């Protein structure tokens, strides 16, 4: 019969109260984990960025294109090993709510720069042969039921008209964090059509993707590229892929900060609930603490009992909350469709949930433990539980 055993039995003394507190903890830890995962999802693009890829875009704004001729000039910059291009398409699939990213890419170079997009060889060959072909990510295919051979119509918003694509391949991610919610098609198909409908917009690209020989060359190569186009009609801004992705996150940073604050508020609220539970519990047991002190037990033993009970409750709620985070996150991700391309519960989130549960358990026990250890025996024995 040790203090841990007694602490656990104490925790189970008022089963309804303990059950409700554990339930509150489950909800709080689960909500905390989900909100942290939403924040992680925001940064997923930046986290999965390669440190040997640079992005070159128009220095004025991303909405202004770069001439396609820049590709060859960039290719000649020392330290550059490959260049590809990608152009945001912004089409609508059936209705606006079906959002997913679509890019016109140079098919021969793009997938070599993104080895994390795994396309079966036969499907890649089929895609290269068909100028109206498209390659879609696994998550996107699952969300909309796309299969190889399906025709996917997109209504252009930036590039007006109805565009038809044939799914020629489905790519998987090499890693769990790889974005598989994208839709790629031939830049040539876009360019040829634009040449007919809006010739002044032809032969442009949104961005150039630049592969460099080594990560440490990033700053030097980026500077060289931008100097190359200094004082041209379209000056460039070259940055690492991670910095480019973080630029998008920065546009919505206030929202991310708000989500983070809410996630910590949830923990603070459950801490207040838990502290109240422990305070009530300790107050009811004043007479028992006085008895234990009379028998010769010191403040350390009483503190262990209270901390043990509080931690037992917090860990029960915390563990259940963590366990539930995975299925709930999966369900949430499915419900959100392709809004969050990557929605994985990270190891860091699990650690943070565990730490949050421990902090709640410890913090809630501090005041009751101090009070219990200060109970005057004669007065405590008169207390009514």
């Amino acid at each position: 019969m040790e203090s841990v055993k007694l602490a656990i039995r104490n925790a189970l003394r008022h089963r309804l109260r303990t059950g409700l507190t554990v339930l509150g903890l489950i909800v709080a830890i689960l909500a905390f984990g989900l909100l942290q995962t939403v924040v992680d999802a925001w940064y997923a693009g930046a986290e999965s960025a390669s440190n040997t890829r640079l992005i070159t875009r128009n220095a004025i704004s991303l909405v202004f294109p770069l001439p396609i001729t820049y590709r060859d000039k960039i290719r000649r910059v020392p330290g550059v090993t490959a260049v590809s291009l990608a152009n945001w398409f912004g089409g609508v699939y059936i209705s606006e709510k079906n959002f997913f990213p679509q890019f016109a890419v140079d098919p021969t170079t793009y997938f070599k720069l993104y080895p994390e997009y795994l396309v079966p060889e036969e499907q890649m060959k089929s895609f290269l042969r068909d100028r109206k072909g498209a390659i879609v990510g696994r998550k996107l295919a699952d969300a909309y039921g796309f299969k190889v051979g399906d025709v996917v119509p997109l209504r252009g918003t930036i590039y007006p008209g109805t565009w038809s694509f044939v799914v020629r391949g489905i790519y998987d991610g090499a890693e769990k964090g790889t974005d598989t919610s994208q839709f790629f098609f031939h830049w040539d198909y876009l360019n040829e059509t634009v040449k007919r409908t809006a010739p002044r917009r032809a032969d442009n690209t949104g961005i150039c993707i630049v592969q460099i020989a080594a990560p440490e060359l990033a700053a030097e190569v980026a500077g060289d590229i931008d100097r190359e186009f200094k004082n041209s009609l379209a000056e460039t801004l070259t940055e690492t892929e991670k910095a480019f992705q973080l630029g998008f996150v920065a546009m919505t940073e206030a929202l991310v900060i708000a989500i983070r604050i809410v996630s910590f508020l949830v923990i603070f609220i459950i801490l207040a609930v838990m502290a109240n539970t422990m305070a009530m519990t300790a107050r009811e047991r004043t007479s028992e603490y006085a008895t234990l002190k009379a028998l010769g037990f010191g403040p350390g033993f009483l503190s262990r009992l209270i901390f043990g009970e509080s931690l037992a409750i917090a860990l029960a709620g915390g563990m259940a909350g963590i366990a539930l985070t995975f299925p709930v996150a999966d369900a949430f991700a499915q419900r959100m469709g392709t809004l969050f391309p990557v929605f994985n519960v990270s190891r860091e989130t699990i650690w943070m949930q565990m730490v949050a549960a421990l902090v709640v358990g410890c913090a809630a026990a501090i005041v009751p433990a101090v009070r219990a250890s200060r109970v005057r025996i004669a007065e405590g024995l008169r207390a009514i539980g």
Partner: protein
Amino acid sequence: MRAGAEERPVVEIRNLAKSYRRGDQVVQVLRDINMDIPAGDFVALMGPSGSGKSTLLNLIAGIDTPDSGELRVDGTDIGGLSEADLAAWRAAHVGFIFQFYNLIPVLTALENVELPLLLTGLSRAERREHAEAALAMVGLSDRLEHYPSELSGGQQQRVAIARAIITDPTLLVADEPTGDLDRASAKEVLDLMDRLNDELGKTIIMVTHDPHSAERAHHLKHLEKGVLAD
């Protein structure tokens, strides 16, 4: 009342005083108490409510400290001990019997009795053996795994007595041990206390309002307004 106890005092009290502060007022609870209790004695402290008998018992048991005077128990000046030393001293020298038993509700009878032994170096098996023997002595061998809520008041008080004697203390202090019991249960508890005094030579100090209970003691001490009356 019976006489007969060893003459060496186990409790020596000289000029003891104790007061409490209630708001701005200082209430003198005990003043100029002088008393010796020989080893093996059975003393009943009586007096009206507020006379200071429970306070005196608390001081002798080391759960409160005097303002002035000398208080020696088994040769130790307990008035001069620190809180931690006093806790260790209580664990070794005092067995407590409370009016409302004060058992831990989530522990079985055996575990409640075993509780004070957690402060000793005994192994789990030794603790269990001692606790079973103590419960056998109070006639509860068949209630080892019962929780307090599954026992009658008299049985709970007998468990409390087993817990009080488990460490073989110098002194047993009992604060209204029969105050919450019916007549039959009270008699069982008092018989048991008699046995502990007669057969094991335990020194017992009991606070009581009940004259029938007080009759079991060898000596009566009356307190009136914080002063020993006899």
